[in-house]
């Protein structure tokens, strides 16, 4: 009976994993820090990515997902990292028309403490772009920032896609 239940559990896990991968593809960061599932129709952008930044464009004209790994982050925790970043975005030289849409809240990403926030700013076209961003501080002064970005109209849809990325997030080390 126990053996049967274990087998069923394993089958369910495999099924869930295959469903997740069925709607996207597994992406492993070049530095090997994490891996996650990138939803289907989201395309890696070579010209905007580098050793520390990976950028994916979504199927619409205004949505994109990007993940940056930063070094020399001296903030004590994810909340401090988030609050410092947002205050700089709000300051002169920051993001044009910056608005904090949702305050910083804390969450866990695959067992690691993180902080998230939603803000918006004005593009050159004067259109308002919304971003849901998750901040993480790792050991060795490393920081990870995961961002979904979209226009206000379709932002909620992109956030739903973002859940796929977050729920499948796994740290490699």
């Amino acid at each position, binding site marked *: 009976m126990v053996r049967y239940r274990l087998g069923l559990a394993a089958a369910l896990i495999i099924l869930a994993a295959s469903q997740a991968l069925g709607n996207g593809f597994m992406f492993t960061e070049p530095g090997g820090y994490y891996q996650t599932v990138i939803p289907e129709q989201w395309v890696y952008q070579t010209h905007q990515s580098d050793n520390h930044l990976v950028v994916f464009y979504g199927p619409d004209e205004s949505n*994109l997902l*990007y993940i940056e790994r930063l070094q020399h982050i001296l903030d004590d925790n994810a909340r401090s990292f988030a609050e410092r970043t947002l205050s700089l975005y709000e300051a002169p030289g920051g993001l044009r028309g910056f608005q904090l849409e949702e305050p910083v809240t804390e969450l866990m990403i695959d067992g690691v403490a993180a902080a998230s926030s939603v803000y918006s700013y004005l593009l050159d076209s004067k259109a308002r772009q919304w971003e849901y961003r998750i901040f993480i501080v790792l050991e060795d002064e490393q920081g990870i920032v995961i*961002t979904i970005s979209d226009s206000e109209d379709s932002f909620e849809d992109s956030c739903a896609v973002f859940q796929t990325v977050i729920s499948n997030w796994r740290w490699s080390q």
Partner: protein
Amino acid sequence: MTSHKTRNLYVVLMVFIVVVSCSGSGEAFHNLLTQFERGIGRGAAPELVKQYGGEYVLPIQERLWLDEIFRRLVDVTKRTEIEYTLTVLNTQEMNAFALPGGYIFVTRGLLRAVGNDESQVAAVLGHEIAHVECKHGLNAVLRQMGLTVLMEVGMFWLDMASTEIVRIASTTALQLLQLGWGREAEYEADILGQEYAVEAGFDGAGSVLLMDYLLQIESADQPLRVFRTHPESYERRERVAANLLSFWSSPQKISDQEWLEVLNSRRNSILDPRMDPMGRFVLTVEGNSSFQWGLEIEDTQQDLALTWLPDHKVFDAAWSPDGKYLAVIVEEKETKGLWLIDRMGNVAKKLRHYSDRHVEEVVWSPQGNMVAMTVSDGTHSDIVVGYLAGNVDIAVSQGKSGSQPIWCDDGIGFVGSGGSYFVRSPDVQPVVIHNPVPRVVERKTFLSPTVIREGNTITLTRPKLSVP
């Protein structure tokens, strides 16, 4: 009015001399003079900002980067009583200024021109900081006003008309700034600024590259009023180029054991210059005094035997650390030259020509911004370091006849007269921003053609251009 003021000043001087002779205190004088100096800068700064289009607020990332360069430079200054500030001016004009008291200004136009080359930004800021360290502005103001330092200190000490005097001094500083602090002051600031930059961990070649750039613009006669407050760039360029050697150590004789360590830590040395860091090409150039026609290359990816530069005598070649270029010693019209060849086999840049001299044994620096070569005139050979970004060569063997250069992390080992030698290179550290701010990425718009399929035919239409 002027003579009336001057008469008053002389009265103040007389009083001051009496007071000083009674109770002089060196530290108090020094503090008062510093206050006066800062007063000049503080008074002149708003007007200068106004004259140059106001303050320009850089995007956060650029500001953090610029601040870090500035901080490293300020950390190596000697005048601890000065609080340095940096302001970016909102003008296309390419210029930079220093007001007495540590007020440093750089224009948006100049920052844009030098781009993200931190060595050139450090050269600009180091030069302006050096003006303050040398008190060029303060001394010029005092000279112009016909005052001595002691008189000014005396006025402060006696608290007589200090506000008025500082106001006049600030106005004088602004007027003098338009003319520059003087030719000799500029030369001094060039050298000292370059030394600050190197001490702060930047490449001293930045000063030379900056001058090269200014010369290029000056010769193009662009109406940008480039560095119009500074003297001709050619003489300045020669001086900072000549100063580069001073940042390298003298060649030190090393033991056989140390030479072995150099060999072990070699980077792209003559023993291993053929390997393409990207693993595709294999060179078969001999790399000794003899030459061969062209570069024999084996393309392991395509399984092809290639010959690059087939009509040229090739004396040596080495891959850059990033594998983007081959540095090649080539003979053209009976003159040796240093060329860069890209991965397609095309000549990317003809860097140098060495008339009447033999050049061989090229090796790259670990950072890929310099090469070392053996250059000989038939009787004597030097280890010459060539900066790729500018036309600057320095003979680091410094009179010791040298050959077989091997570039390690911290310098160059070579075989010289009577043994092996090592010359230490300046320590260059990239800008590291502590607590960086995450980037905000925006989606780019592409003009995509429309694909029309008709049977076996695919037609691509021209993308429509529309103004957003």
